[in-house]
């Protein structure tokens, strides 16, 4: 690993990551804080959530909001993968394609660092930045629960956050691969976001429409069952293994693609 490149990537992205972590912390804490006033009305919400159109967005494993965990998993984690995933994608798109687009890639490549090292160092920078966001979410749930006097199963939330973090890094690895084969940061980001959104829809619509159920296996969301961990206390280590395998495969593809390609600034 090229430590200076790793350090620079973290410094470059620290401000935006701290900002998003803070915003998500405040948002989740704010959501948690009004759960007590919402609790008397949750039966109505639960009925509403049985609507197939809503299920197509939130997925079939919609949980009841009668518990704080159910409320958080529905109001926060049903779409949080999209939010954090999109943030990581925009961050990662600048790592290679963005660098070529802003014409700094030749200066970077003139440094005595192999292309493999550049990719790996920048990929590793995703890890602490993702951890910061996920720890912020965890803290918001815990403090929000304390604030409203709800007893939460912190261990299961911690497992859920572990899955969320690994899922986010897997999204980052796919985005890094796309960034490695492109020369336009914005296009790379939009394509990655498109893929992320398609995976989100495939997982949720696939849970409702049996004819495309097979396609759910192609979606990263299928392997990050946050709701199932928080509410049913079910953990699939196989799913975690699949996410880790996706990280390894796409990181390797990113390295190979970046090592083989011509870097032409024009």
């Amino acid at each position: 690993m090229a430590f200076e490149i790793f350090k620079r990537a973290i410094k470059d992205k620290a401000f935006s990551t701290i900002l998003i972590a803070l915003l998500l912390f405040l948002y989740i804490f704010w959501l948690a804080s009004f759960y007590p006033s919402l609790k008397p009305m949750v039966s109505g919400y639960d009925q509403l959530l049985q609507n197939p159109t809503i299920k197509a967005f939130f997925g079939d494993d919609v949980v009841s909001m009668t518990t704080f965990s159910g409320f958080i998993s529905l109001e926060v984690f049903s779409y949080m993968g999209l939010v954090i995933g999109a943030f990581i994608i925009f961050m990662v798109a600048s790592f290679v394609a963005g660098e070529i687009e802003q014409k700094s890639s030749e200066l970077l490549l003139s440094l005595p660092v192999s292309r493999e090292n550049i990719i790996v160092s920048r990929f590793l920078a995703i890890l602490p930045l993702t951890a910061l966001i996920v720890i912020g979410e965890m803290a918001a749930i815990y403090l929000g629960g304390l604030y409203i006097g709800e007893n939460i199963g912190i261990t299961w939330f911690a497992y859920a956050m572990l899955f969320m973090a690994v899922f986010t890094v897997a999204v980052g690895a796919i985005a890094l691969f796309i960034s490695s084969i492109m020369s336009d940061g914005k296009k790379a980001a939009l394509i990655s976001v498109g893929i992320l959104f398609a995976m989100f829809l495939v997982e949720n619509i696939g849970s409702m429409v049996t004819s495309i159920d097979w396609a759910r296996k192609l979606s990263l969301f299928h392997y990050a069952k946050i709701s199932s961990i928080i509410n049913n206390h079910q953990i699939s280590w196989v799913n975690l293994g699949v996410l880790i395998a996706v990280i390894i495969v796409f990181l390797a593809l990113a390295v190979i693609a970046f090592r083989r390609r011509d870097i032409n600034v024009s």
Partner: protein
Amino acid sequence: METVIQTSNLTKFYGKSRGIENVSITVNKGDIFGFLGPNGAGKSTTIRTILDFIRPTGGNATVFGLDSRRDSVAIRRRIGYIPGDFGLYGNMTGWKFLEYFGKTRGGYDKISAREYAKKMDIKLDRRMKEYSRGMRQKVAIIQAFMNNPDLIIMDEPTSGLDPLIQQTFMDILREKSSQGTTIFMSSHVLSDVEKVCNRVAIIKEGSIVAEELVDDLHKKSGKVLEVQFSEEVSPDVFKMDGVSGVTKLNSHMRIMVTGNLENVLKEVSSHRLTDISIHQMTLEEIFMHYYEGGK
């Protein structure tokens, strides 16, 4: 003499489109090597291939005797590079950028960076997104020189620099060369190349058409006669062996002679004239000579 850069039949095609073809050049230790050619001739493609930014479709290149592809990291430990068209990290200050590059190269020499910043007359405290084209060029120059590399490769290094700084830059090049640093530069500014380079190569449509010591190139390339006639003379009378080109503007004629001068002078003296001068071709004239198909 120690060879620093050697390319053998280096070729790069982008699909069916030609980048460079069979480029073979040799740059020796201590050379200030000028690489000349107009836009699209293949200068940047050659440089990028040597630096392993793009991969050749044929031939090979060595730098310090090392393979440009296999040993590219080892090579880059010993070089500084100024790209022709580049962007900087806009949110960083110039100092932070130099520190980042210096440390990534293995050590940031703050004193050296400050010395070059002083020579280039630039303040580096502001974020680089506020820099002008000339200021960005100065930053690129400083980062290439500050680690005291054995070889500096530059693609159009003087673009954006004002004449005073260009002069300072030329002085730096001479100083570095005298200390044993090898310089490889592409440029459109032929007068600059003529001032500092001891060897040049001319690239035309992707192929090398000349590679010589600048002095030898001058000697081989012949002379230019500038003649002011006081009678009407047709340029056709100078269509003879050894004359590679004649241009006429009113009574003034410019005759490029690459062969024996005697016959040309005999023809000139058979007409009435008011003025005549003979000088060796400048690098610009040699360059134009090659590009007008004279050789």
